[in-house]
């Protein structure tokens, strides 16, 4: 194994361990943790036996294994971006509903009738502060 493989394998092993911890401690959902672990395992395989990606790539009609990985990365990032965006929209919407609820619950009501200065016949000036006691 060349130095790159050793370093990359170390990193992937750490990430795999981390995902396992998440799963055991219940900090991530079971489905998410297992998906991540599978991803790291696949990465490990691709690092140790790079030819595997080439076989898959050729089967799909792509020349190099590295290209296959590049395309997969691009698709994964786009999907991730859309998921984050959808979540952001949902959060925004929920925040608005919460803010609306607060605003309606805490509405300030002016029970006093419009003050005499408001009478159009007497109010000539622009400023006529209401005297609220």
């Amino acid at each position: 194994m060349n130095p790159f493989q050793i370093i990359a394998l170390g990193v992937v092993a750490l990430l795999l361990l981390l995902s396992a911890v998440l799963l055991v401690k219940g900090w991530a959902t079971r489905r998410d943790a297992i998906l991540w672990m599978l991803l790291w395992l696949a990465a490990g395989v691709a690092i140790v036996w790079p030819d595997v990606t080439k076989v898959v790539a050729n089967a799909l009609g792509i020349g190099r294994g590295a290209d296959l990985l590049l395309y997969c990365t691009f698709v994964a990032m786009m999907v991730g971006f859309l998921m984050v965006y959808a979540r952001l929209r949902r959060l925004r919407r929920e925040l608005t509903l919460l803010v609306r609820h607060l605003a309606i619950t805490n509405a300030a009501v002016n029970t006093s009738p419009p003050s005499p200065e408001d009478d159009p016949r007497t109010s000539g000036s622009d400023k006529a502060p209401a005297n609220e006691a």
Partner: protein
Amino acid sequence: MASDPTRKTPALDEAVRADTFVVIAAYNEATCIEQVAREVRRVYPHVVVVDDGSSDTTFEAARRGATYVLRHPLNRGQGAALQTGIEFALLRGAKFVVTFDADGQHRVEDIQAMVAPIAQGLCEITLGSRFLGGTKDMPTERRRTLRMAVLFTRIVNRMDVTDAHNGLRGFSRTAASMIDITLDRMAHASELLDQIRSSGLSYTEIPVQIRYTEYSIAKGQSSRNAIQIVVQYVLGKVMP
């Protein structure tokens, strides 16, 4: 206030006025909101101001002028603020809801023209149009942008309206209950038209006048924003 008797609408009954809620969304409008709310309240007893998380003293100013003042603890955009005001008005038993801009660009006299057709049962929704009315002093660039917006509306919303982004709108109680503005920021105008069309509610355009003051021009949407509004609206359509 300059009254312009170019057009006569019969004055509304006392009962209709008492059932009308005027909803004003205000964001950093401390300089004029009190005056605007007060002018409306002289004629309509129920004036609802929604302070959309302003950083200035809009809330305090609105308290002196309006009947009800609601405060968004965070800024959520004009569409969200209007929806809050409409829901509040419905909770308070409104039979008619009129939305009115905070910057003093609308005339209080125009409100009755917005409510009258609904009160008479002629339609469920009224939309103000500055192009049907004799609006003067409209800046050329503003006119051009709005014409584009109308074209956009005719194509995308498939509605034959003359003014797509007028803040003066009237709703019957039924219509107001069916409207649910979810696009928080300015794209809500197109969204609203979508909902009106798909709900099958009857609507009429009402000629109104806009007062283009230096203040209302400065506070208004810039033409550059128009692009943003279109993008936001389209994204709102494709994303759930």
